Structure formats: C-alpha cells, structure tokens
C-alpha cells in the first residue's frame, strides 16, 4: 500500500479515539509526574523543588494513618471478597434448581453504585441496628459501628464484600464451567471425594479466574472511594480515610496540590507494583491446557 493511503487509513480508524485518550489520560498523567517536582499551586509553577513534595507527604502523620489503613483494607477485603465469591460460585454452579434465582440475589448489590450502597448501610449501622439493639438489648450494636475506628473498618469490609462478591462470583462461575466434564468424571471414577476434586482438579484448572478476580479486587481495594465517602466519610476523626479520599481531601478541600499530587503518584506506584507482583505470582499457578 502506498504510504499516503496507509496514513490516511490510520487516521480514519484511530485518530479520534487516540487523540481523546491522549488528551484525557496521557497528558494529565505525565503532567502529574512533572508537577510533583515543582511548587505547583493548581494554576502555575514558578520553580523546581526536587523531592520536597514527596518529603512533605511522608512527613504528614495523617498520610501514614491512611497508608496503613488502606494496606489493611486491601488485604482483608481481597481475602474476604474472594473467599465469599468463590463460595457463592460453588453454590450457584451446584445442581440446585434455584441456582439462577440465587445468582440474581447475589449479583444485584453489584449493579448499584457505591454511594447508594454506602448510604443504605449508613442507615443500617447508625439507625436500624442501634434502634433494634436498644429494643432487644444487643450490646454489640448499641453504639453505632461507624463511631469506632475498628468497627468502622469492619463495616467497610462488610459493605465491600456485599458489593463486590457478586461480580467476582461471575468470574469464578466462568472458571468453574470452563472445566471439561470428562476431567471431572475421570476424577469421580477414580474415587476422588468432592473436596479432593475441588482442591486437586477444579482450583488448579481454573487458576486463571483467580488471577483475574484477585487483580480486580486488589485494584478495587486501592481505588475504593464511593463506599468510603458514603459510609464513614473518613470518620471518626479522619481515621478511616482510604487513600483515594485522602488525596481528594488534600487537593480539593485543603488546596495542597503539590503534596496531593505527590501522594497520588505514590498511590500509582504502589498499585502498579502490587498488581505486577500479584499477576506474576498467580500466573505461576495457571495450568496450560
């Protein structure tokens, strides 16, 4: 093909999406890196400041609270969401006649945005449970869970599991049904118990589903914002702020654009590193068929 024609075809098919992608995503991303080394105030930069913004970020004790809280949240939600989702997938792929109805019930929370879910659960923790606890004398719920940092953490986990397990369930269902029937029959004929089949046949053969679900929950955990805002709003006393919310507060409410962006870059590096490690490790367990 002549050069002019290939270029024309390239522009016709890719011009608009690539231009928008570059303007919306690539440029701000590169800008963001650059700004962290300057005294950017949201409008203009006048000089380079080296690593000052990063040093300021790490000198901020609240940032450490957030980092620690986010790390624990990511690990616990990763384990909880995937354990529950895998269990749900096993129930829904069993021979029950009601399996499709059950699947719908498990999936529906996932359709609804985190804000609405967060608000629903705020009502449950702040009002419904408290009023029931006073009526029936349940010590555990007499005071709202959202007023105590540790309990608010578990509230976040509960809502996250409720929201995300349906989606990950679908990922695991896809993995489970992709296993050929003759493999399962062979293991049955060889006298493998259901548990043995699960651990020695099903899980290794569907390792790819685990790679994907773990990746999605890892990323989701780091990026969690909606539920955090709507459920705890960082309270009590900014002790339950996940990293997204922390960056938002820093930049848009307190106007610290430089440190806010430095923290955003730190977040990006942590997410990229964690995802890379997770995918490399999980890939090792995938069986070639």
């Amino acid at each position, binding site marked *: 093909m002549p050069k002019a024609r290939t270029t024309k075809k390239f522009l016709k098919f890719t011009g608009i999406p690539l231009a928008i*992608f570059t303007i919306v995503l690539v440029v701000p991303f590169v800008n963001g890196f650059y700004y962290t080394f300057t005294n950017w105030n949201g*409008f203009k930069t006048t000089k380079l400041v080296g690593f000052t913004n990063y040093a300021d970020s790490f000198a901020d004790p609240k940032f450490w609270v957030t980092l620690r809280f986010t790390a624990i949240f990511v690990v616990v939600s990763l384990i909880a969401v995937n354990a529950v989702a895998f269990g749900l997938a096993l129930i829904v792929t*069993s021979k029950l006649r009601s399996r499709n109805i059950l699947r719908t019930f498990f999936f529906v929370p996932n359709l609804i945005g985190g804000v609405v879910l967060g608000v629903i*659960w705020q*009502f449950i923790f702040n009002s419904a449970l408290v009023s029931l606890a006073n009526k029936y004398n349940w010590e555990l719920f007499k005071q709202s869970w959202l007023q105590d940092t540790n309990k608010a953490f578990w509230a976040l986990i509960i809502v996250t599991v409720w929201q995300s397990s349906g989606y990950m369930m679908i990922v695991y269902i*896809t993995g489970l049904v992709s296993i050929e029937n003759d493999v399962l029959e062979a293991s049955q004929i060889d006298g493998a118990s259901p548990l043995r089949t699960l651990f020695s046949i099903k899980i290794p053969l569907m390792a790819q589903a685990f790679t994907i679900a773990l990746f999605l929950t890892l990323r989701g955990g780091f*990026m969690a914002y909606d539920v955090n805002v709507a459920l705890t709003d960082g309270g009590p006393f900014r002790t339950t702020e996940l990293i997204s919310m922390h960056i938002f507060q820093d930049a848009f409410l307190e106007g610290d654009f430089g440190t806010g962006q430095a923290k955003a870059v730190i977040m990006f590096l942590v997410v990229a590193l964690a995802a890379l490690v997770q995918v490399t490790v999980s890939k090792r367990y995938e069986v070639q068929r």
Partner: protein
Amino acid sequence: MNFRARLGKRITFGIGSILAITYFFPFFLVFVNSVKLKYDILANPLALPVQISWENFQQAFAKMNFFRSLTNSLIITVFSVSLLIIFSSMLAYYLARTKNKTSKYIFLILVASMIVPFQALMIPFMARFAPLVSYNNRGALIFFYIGFGTALSTFLYHGFISTIPTEIDEAASIDGASDMVAFWRIIFPMMRPITATVAIINALWIWNDFLLPRLVLDEPSQTLPLSTYRFYGQYTVEYGQVMAGLALAVIPIVIFYLILQKQFISGISQGAVK
C-alpha cells in the same frame, strides 16, 4: 440419587437461601421503611408498615429532582457508551488487522494504561480541564468517559476481532468495498456479542460513577448517584424520605438488569476472562 448426595444438596440449598436473604436484607429495609412514617421507622425498622404512605416518595421525587437526574444519567450514559463503541471498535479493528510496530506499541500503551487509577491523575486533570468543564459540563464528562473507557473497550474488541478470519476483509475489498464500508457493513455486525459486553460493562461503570461526576458536574446536570448523595446529606434525619430516595435510585438499574439478565451475566463473564 443416594442419601449423601441428597443431604449435600439440602445443605447447599440451606446455605444458599440464608445467604440470599442476607444479601437482599438491606434492600428489604429500604423498601419497607420508604413507605413508613418517621416515628414508625425509629420504633421498629424491621416491622412491616402499619399503613402505607406515599408521602415520602412524593417528597423524595421533588427534592432530589428525580426526573432531571434520571434524564442526565441516561443522556450521559447513552452518549458515552455509544461513542465508546463506535471509536474503540474502529481502533481495535485497525490495531488487530495492521500488524506493525506502531500498532503493537499503541496496544501495549492502552493495556498498560488500565492499571493507572483515576486518582493518580485527577488533580492535574481538573486543573487542565476546568475551562472545558465550565463551558459544557455534560459534554465534557462524555468526552472524559471516552478517554477513560477507550483502553478496556479496545482491548475487548481486539480480542474478539482476532477470532474473525481475515479472508472476510479480503473478500470485501475484492468486491470493491472501502475500508470503512467493509468495517461497518461486514465486520461490525459480526461483533454483536462483544459489543453487548462492551456496552454493559461501560454502562454499569458510567451509570454508577461518582468521583468524576462529582468533580465535573454542576447542580443542574447532576446524575442519580450525585443527587441521591446530596439529598441524603441534606435530609439525613428524614429517614422515610431518604429511604424513598434510595429506592428510587435503585429501581431503574435493577429493572434494566432483570430485563437483560442473560446479557449482563454473559457480558461480565466474557469481559472478565479476556
């Protein structure tokens, strides 16, 4: 069926049902309390309504500007998803069919960009786009969704196009069809299943998104999640009205899901496996 298998089935059914009830319970609370008076809600949030009052719904409808937010959500979702389908299918077609270094690198950059959290660039993003946003904020938001959605959508289309034999393109070009005609008349209709996947995954994301609209949209352009959140912030103590507002926020998407249930499930499982 032997005894053990039957017992196993019973136990699975029991656990499944308990879990299903647990998963549904929060919605039950919302719906039940949305038609109760404030006093009755506080007295016992679990009790069924003594008398059904639609007052809460009327209030919520008006105060959260339900129809306006619903229209905004619909406009933004429909336009963003349609444009994403048009642009990313073309991009993916080009990248999958033109095997050279440029295509390979563009594809790699797109895939790599999926790991970047929006939060990592939202600050420079807002600084840069403030003028555009103040010019037309719904239009700007649609533009942003195309930018942020391109990578995943292109990736999904790319995987699917690789399964369509190139002989089809060649036949079309021998018959004298131009590139564009061949793509829209012949290839695109063959991609219906993946188009459904792309549409559902993006629609769910855009319909429910909160952070980006929160930064971009002004009050008259609010989408449903924003107006729900705002309504809740203002009327927290009016439990009944809040519950009615939440019910209103939940109902449209659930109806949509129940109609298209099969496509949803297969869309997500296809989207996830790729």
